[in-house]
């Protein structure tokens, strides 16, 4: 059962790239999807990442009881844990919920209301026409959202740390600048691109293959989100093993 789903998923991926429409057709579709996937997610990503930074800062300070450890270590930890892990992964998990359910719901509705059939009838490869723009847009937008999330987490940590008198602004900035491993930024971006591909394609696969009625579309959305989250976490682990 699982294997047959995975096989069908890969066949589905194949259909995205065969027999496409002219490139010009995709340009506007990708732009529209960038708005729906990227711009409309800025708000939720901002909120989540600011709080994650704040919480990381406060909790790290709470765990650092030894007076021997200098305070600027707090911001080193905030910086490294958010850029490496929390910004890309938590952002992607949040987006799996928001973008994944949106993609699955939209495609599922198009399937059961025969809109996909209507595309096929005039000879359009519906999977590539509908899904490819979403995948491309997600792969363009997720890295930007993750970069935003990285900045905001560090800023959230700064605000929380200084307002709660945990750390001075000077120490926080000093910590941010000390011993920075520059690979963590490209690593976060690589992760976000991989997660974007997984979330967009898995959700699209669920929606595109929905059959029946509103109930099935709802189920497809739920499955899309669960499967996307699992895939993101599995990929997170694999990428850490491979690249770090």
């Amino acid at each position, binding site marked *: 059962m699982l294997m047959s789903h995975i096989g069908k998923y890969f066949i589905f991926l194949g259909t995205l790239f065969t027999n496409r429409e002219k490139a010009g057709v995709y340009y506007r579709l990708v732009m529209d999807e960038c708005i729906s996937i990227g711009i409309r997610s800025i708000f939720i990503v901002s909120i989540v990442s600011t709080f994650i930074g704040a919480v990381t800062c406060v909790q790290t300070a709470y765990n650092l009881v030894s007076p021997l450890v200098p305070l600027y270590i707090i911001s080193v930890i905030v910086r490294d844990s958010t850029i490496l892990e929390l910004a890309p992964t938590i952002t992607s998990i949040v987006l799996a919920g928001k973008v994944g359910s949106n993609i699955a719901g939209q495609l599922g509705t198009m399937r059961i*209301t*025969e*809109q996909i*059939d*209507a595309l*096929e*009838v*005039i*000879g359009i490869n519906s999977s590539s026409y509908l899904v490819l723009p979403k995948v491309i847009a997600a792969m363009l937008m997720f890295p930007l959202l993750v970069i935003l999330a990285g900045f905001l987490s560090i800023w959230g940590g700064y605000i929380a740390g200084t307002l709660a008198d945990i750390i001075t602004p000077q120490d926080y900035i000093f910590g941010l600048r000390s011993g920075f491993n520059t690979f963590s930024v490209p690593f976060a971006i690589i992760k976000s691109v991989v997660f974007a591909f997984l979330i967009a394609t898995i959700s699209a696969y669920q929606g595109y293959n929905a059959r029946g009625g509103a109930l099935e579309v709802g189920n497809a959305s739920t499955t899309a989100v669960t499967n996307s989250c699992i895939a993101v976490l599995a990929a997170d682990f694999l990428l850490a093993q491979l690249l770090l």
Partner: protein
Amino acid sequence: MLEIKNISKTFGDRQVLYDISGSFRPGQTSLIIGGSGTGKSVLLKCMIGLVKPDSGEVLYDGRNFLADNEEEQKVIRREMGVLFQGSALFDSKTVLENVRFPLDMLTDMSAGEKNERAQVCLQRVGLEGAGDRMPSEISGGMKKRVGIARAIVLNPKYLFCDEPNSGLDPLTSIKIDQLIKEITDEYQITTIVITHDMNSMLEIGEKIIFLYQGKKLWEGDSDSIVHSTIPELNDFIYANKLLREMEK
């Protein structure tokens, strides 16, 4: 001339269509009738290439649609228009964009020409003012008409309508039927309509095929249908109490 030959289709272990043949002439509205779940939509989907039959042929003026010749399929697809059971309008596009969509995707016309052509089709179905509305803002009957406008925008030689008047009031149904019949006459289209509406059968059915549990049980015209001697067909058309009394 559209011909289907010996179409059979099985889903899993359930056979839905049994060896169905028939032919449909240009300028004529042919009806496929039958109860719910007898395979009418599946037969239509076999004809338009959305479902691949297990066996059988679909010939568009002699051209075999199911033979794996993609170029030829594309040509034939350009010649057909389909109105789906639920209208199937793209809900992210306005009414005008919906009608224009096949032109956008399949022709090299300029934007002005495309808009003009789309407007003509909207006018033809009596919706000239509704171009800027979204599908969610218009009624079911209007959706069907937009669906018809979209189906005829490429000047099809073959028009397929899956239950064009399900869910509509009797008067609107008749108007939609008349519209389909007029368009068929006007452009000499080969039109195939799925319906289980008695009014449609008597009004526009120049040729009628009756499906029962996936088999073709009867074929004829609207005059002879009331004199048929097939019990399944009689049960179907005289399900209505009024008609049953009229028969007696």
